[in-house]
């Protein structure tokens, strides 16, 4: 199929290699620096690492969610965006490696590994280290498998232009989404909710998922604006597509706030001591300030920024909103993890900066490496011309 836009559809090698080199240096440099933190304060490292890991994992699962949602709804408008999502989702196997330190540091981070409280011991059949490690590996293998199958099937379609491939991916996305929803929920229970082993919230998985959806959209938007700034895909992914990404970010910002408030509201109303402990910890001292900053930063600011049509169609404002959302998605993960370590108040450590940046640049480096020299849009997708001509209203 002939693409009617006049863009160069793959990243030219010299610039791609330079980008890759920069990302790898950043990732390795900050990674090695973080090792110093591991040597000096292992407990802080364990918690900072968990924050960074869940941040990166949520971006990966959010990306996978969007790929399958586009398939299952047979979306035409978003075809030009899908390859970028697929390329990023291919970095999910890296999380298998990044998961190893989580297991190694588990005894410093998760109270249930050593606790002798009766209420914690009662959960031992689920919360024990070997099963925790196996479950984590299963989630990550499922995500990686789904991501790679979808991405390679889509890449193969570039040459064959076979419409049957689209149907196969659509068919796989239906069970895929169910599996993703279940594994993401259990992963958030395992990695984040079990930090407080006596506390539970049935909506917690949805909360984590809502953040991952809006965070991965923000990352996609920033990636597109970055490619545009470098001069690529400007006539392929146009203002029309960015406008719709803005609408989706706006919608899922509200969705996140809706879920976050629902979780808080039910616990506040029922007022049961075993449930309220979680929010008492987050509403005392400087943690209360962070909770408010989350409500304002993850909801109010993007809500107002993304409301006007002109703002969604303005690349600098949309880019600012996306960067803001991504930052506050990380603050959200910090808010979930850190009160367990620093119950006395918010104590930002330099590791909280170096670890997520090292991990994000690592996944982006892998993404860049895997996309070099290949088309950045699915050129064999039968709906590509529809997507190129897309007109947002």
């Amino acid at each position, binding site marked *: 199929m002939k693409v009617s836009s006049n863009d160069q559809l793959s990243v030219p090698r010299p610039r791609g290699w330079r980008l890759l080199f920069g990302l790898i240096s950043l990732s390795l440099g900050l990674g090695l620096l973080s090792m110093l933190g591991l040597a000096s304060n292992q407990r802080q490292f364990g918690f900072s690492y968990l924050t960074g890991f869940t941040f990166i994992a949520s971006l990966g699962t959010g990306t996978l969610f969007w790929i399958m949602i586009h398939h299952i709804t047979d979306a035409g408008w978003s075809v030009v965006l899908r390859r970028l999502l697929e390329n990023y989702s291919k970095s999910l196997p890296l999380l298998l490696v990044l998961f190893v330190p989580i297991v190694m540091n588990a005894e410093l981070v998760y109270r249930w590994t050593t606790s002798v409280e009766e209420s914690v011991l009662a959960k031992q059949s689920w919360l024990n280290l070997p099963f925790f490690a196996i479950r984590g590996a299963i989630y990550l293998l499922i995500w990686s498998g789904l991501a790679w199958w979808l991405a390679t099937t889509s890449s193969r379609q570039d040459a064959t232009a076979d419409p049957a491939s689209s149907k196969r991916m659509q068919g796989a996305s239906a069970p895929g989404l169910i599996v993703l929803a279940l594994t993401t929920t259990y992963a958030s229970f395992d990695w984040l909710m079990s930090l407080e082993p006596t506390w539970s919230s049935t909506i917690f998985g949805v909360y984590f998922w809502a953040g991952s959806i809006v965070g991965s959209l923000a990352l996609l938007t920033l990636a597109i604006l970055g490619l545009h700034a470098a001069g690529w895909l400007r006539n392929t992914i146009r203002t029309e597509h960015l406008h719709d990404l803005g609408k989706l970010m706006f919608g899922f910002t509200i969705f996140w706030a809706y879920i976050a408030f629902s979780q*808080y509201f039910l616990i*506040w*109303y029922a*007022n049961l001591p075993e449930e309220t402990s979680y929010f008492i910890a987050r509403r005392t001292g400087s943690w209360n300030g962070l909770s408010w900053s989350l409500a304002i930063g993850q909801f109010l600011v993007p809500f107002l920024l993304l409301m006007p*049509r002109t703002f969604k169609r303005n690349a600098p404002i949309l880019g600012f909103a996306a960067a803001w959302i991504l930052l506050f998605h990380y603050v959200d993960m910090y808010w979930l993890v850190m009160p367990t370590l620093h119950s006395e108040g918010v104590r930002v450590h330099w590791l909280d900066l170096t670890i997520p940046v090292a991990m994000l640049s690592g996944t982006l480096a892998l993404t860049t490496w895997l996309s070099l020299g290949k088309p950045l849009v699915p050129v064999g997708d039968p709906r590509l011309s529809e997507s190129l001509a897309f*007109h947002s209203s």
Partner: protein
Amino acid sequence: MKSATGAIARFDSPDHLMSAIRTLREAGFSEIEAYTPFPIHGIDEALGRQRSKLPWVVLVGGLFGAISGYLVQWYLSVVEYPLIVGGKPYDSREAWIPITFEMTILFAAFSAIGGMFLFNRLPRLHHPLFDVPTFSRATNDGFFLTVRIFEVPQDRQAISELLASCGGHDVTTLDMED
């Protein structure tokens, strides 16, 4: 109510219609309206349409819903009829949020519907265009244009010739009420 005279013409295809719109706008006519059986991409821009003011009406409606929803609950539970419910303080702000949210949505939706009716001057049971015999084809295969002409009678002849020269059929003049 200001009375104005207009002209109407039927075109065979969206392309004819669009080129007629361009010709008329170049000739200096600005109050042009199109009636087509299906939406045509780019026609709003061609007609020089401003974007609707409806979002602002919805914003005001939403804000009114939010503020009134919050205040009603606060006034009832704190000032007018304070009761302790579930051991919570009178002014339990968390509890006001769901209804505040629902009232925001409700009034935003009301103002969207109401504003749409207002801007479209609905309900309106009759329109001068319904007197044009072929106008029912606007829901079938006819692409119609109307142009408003103010005051100057010789414009009437000029506009009819212009519409016919663009490929318009059944060119007629009509009285259009505002």
